[in-house]
């Protein structure tokens, strides 16, 4: 008699369920929930310095944060960054997927080309883009010169630096999201298109009323991922700008890194981390509550 049926016999299936869940639960607790609680706990204390031990400061770190102009700037930058990268990379991904899902000549080449940015390491890519953006000798300025436009200090000017980071992020992410759309597109049964053709619907109508709704689960997944990426992926900042000039390209996570590991102000970094957690948690709830309603899982 197997363990399973023995458990069943004793009406103890819940033990079985817990056993199955345990590895994941333990890992989650150790590496996600415990650190979260740890950060929240730490955020109520001051950072120890030589001769000044850590002490309880209550909401002190939080009021520092609310009065910290760099925090607000990083938050503002991050919102612009998210709003700029998420819709663009998702739309672009969908567009590319539809394009290579058809039968264009050399579609293997096109697909590979679209996907390549994803597999390259962000740090390597940033080093290449750093030279794209370099004034005068970079490719961007060389193109400008062809058209008689003046050169520009792309990463050195507060007006363009964030857009430069966003362009790199979109280039990097769109190909990745395309793969998901492509897989979803290939899962749509061709009969639907035939039926629609018989009913006399146009291609755009079919795309809007059939393809798009069927892609909603993928869209939800992709949007959630894009959102996370816009708060989580800061590798390129290290290479391209270090958050400069004057913090105009600093994103929240980069600022947290700076406070934690450059200034070693761990307590304040924990406070910023809690703020980031609240923001991300809030957005996750929002996404699942609102978009979920429009998603039809099959």
């Amino acid at each position, binding site marked *: 008699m197997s363990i399973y049926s023995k458990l069943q016999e004793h009406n103890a299936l819940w033990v079985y369920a817990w056993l199955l869940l345990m590895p994941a639960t333990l890992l989650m607790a150790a*590496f996600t929930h415990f*650190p979260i609680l740890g950060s929240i706990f730490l955020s109520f204390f001051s950072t120890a*310095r*030589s001769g*000044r031990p850590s002490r309880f400061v209550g909401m002190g770190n939080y009021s520092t944060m609310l009065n910290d102009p760099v925090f607000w700037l990083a938050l503002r930058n991050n919102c612009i960054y998210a709003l700029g990268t998420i819709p663009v990379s998702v739309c672009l991904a969908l567009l590319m997927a539809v394009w290579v899902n058809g039968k264009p000549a050399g579609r293997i080449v096109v697909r590979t080309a679209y996907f390549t940015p994803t597999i390259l390491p962000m740090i390597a890519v940033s080093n290449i883009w*750093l*030279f794209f953006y*370099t*004034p*005068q*000798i970079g490719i961007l300025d060389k193109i400008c*010169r062809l058209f*008689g*436009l*003046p*050169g520009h*200090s792309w*990463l*050195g*000017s*507060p007006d363009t630096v964030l857009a430069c980071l966003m362009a790199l992020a979109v280039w990097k992410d769109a190909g990745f999201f395309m793969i998901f759309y492509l897989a979803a597109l290939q899962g749509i049964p061709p009969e639907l298109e035939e039926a629609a053709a018989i009913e006399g619907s146009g291609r755009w109508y079919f795309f809007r009323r059939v393809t798009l709704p069927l892609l909603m689960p993928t869209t939800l997944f992709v949007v959630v991922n894009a959102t996370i990426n816009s708060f989580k992926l800061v590798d390129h900042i*290290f290479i391209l*700008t*270090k958050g*400069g*000039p*004057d*913090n*105009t390209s600093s994103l929240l996570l980069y600022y947290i890194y*700076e406070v934690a*590991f*450059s*200034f*070693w*102000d761990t307590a304040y970094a924990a406070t910023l981390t809690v703020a980031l957690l609240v923001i991300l948690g809030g957005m996750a709830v929002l996404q699942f509550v609102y978009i979920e309603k429009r998603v039809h899982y099959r």
Partner: protein
Amino acid sequence: MRKIWIMLLCAIAATGILSAATAGAAVELNMYYPVAVGGPITNVIDGMIADFESANPDIHVKAVYAGNYDDTRIKALSALKANQPVQLSVLFSIDLYELMDQDVIVPFDEIAVSPEDRQWLSSFYPALMENSLAKGKIWGVPFQRSTIVMYYNKDAFKEAGLDPSKPPSTWQEMTEAARKLTQRDASGNIIRWGVSIPSTGYAYWMFQALCIENGLELMNKDGNQTRFDSPAVIEALQFWRDLGAKDKVMPEGTIDWGTLRQKFVEGATAMMWHTTGNLTAVREGSKFDFGVTMLPANKHRGSPTGGGNFYIFKNTSQAERQAALKFIKFMTSPELTARWSMATGYVATSPAAYKTAALEKYVTDFPAAAVARDQFQYSVAELSVHENARVKKILDDAVQSVLTGAATPKAAMESAQQQADRVLKPYRP
């Protein structure tokens, strides 16, 4: 996520300890080092270490390239906090107070005790030791050290009707030369800028040079007081801003530290301020004749020293400390110092190195290699205060906000001083 990494690193480190234990009496040294200039620097370091190991088979040195100076400090401190074995590192000379505050380094006075060792400690240029001294002790040994020098394109000088043997020696001369050197195409777009002073990564360093030249040091000797809001500082920042905004001889906005060398060797800027550590890379990259000169003066000449020192960490055994000392003595011996200086352009750290046959000949053939050393007579210690990373960042931000036109020099520096005061207050008696 970071925790996972630390765990993994611990696991790797643990296997490292086990294998070291089985290897017998050999001492294993781990160190991090930064690279802030161009060229195949990691190869040079690896070659020097290989020579050390073949001369000292009982000591293994594992040197890990860890990014720029800030990255390297961060990596070393993280490793120490995670109890990973790191016995020594090359870190920013100006991280001294920060490393002392964190209580992670030992003074060399406690390790280098023999008369021969004492003599070695006193063999370096005094200018380079300024950032090593605190509380009457020596905490760092100079290794990849520099001053800021001005590189200039001699071909461009000739083209603009300037005398390439007389580079500008004052701020005013520099501005005037830069005006002549700035070149526009038919539609008025800039092809070549007159001068570029980099303002990312080490903006505070360049700015400190301008302040020294304007007659003021940015901080006091105890590292707990800054003078960001004094008129001489504001004036220096105004001069920097004006080069771009008013005189139009330097790109507006910030100028990237890392790519500036490439711009210079491709002729996109006729003069640049940069570390002498880039000298060899510039020499190998440029297709034109270039010169190197001391930074121009306003009230007087001046440049902060810069670069990295060897530090030995506190959490080490006696055997490890002695092995580390042996290694550092090897790396800073006149012959190795000469080799390192020729491979990079960093100043050789002791007068004895300049007396070695190799370096002596090199300097005769290539006088530019001695400019940074000759500048020592005007140089002062680099900005180094308690909580240096934070104070440096405050200054960097202020400088960048002015260069991008977001704030006036006066407003930016007054705010920077207030912020620095808040950080440094606990360190004042």
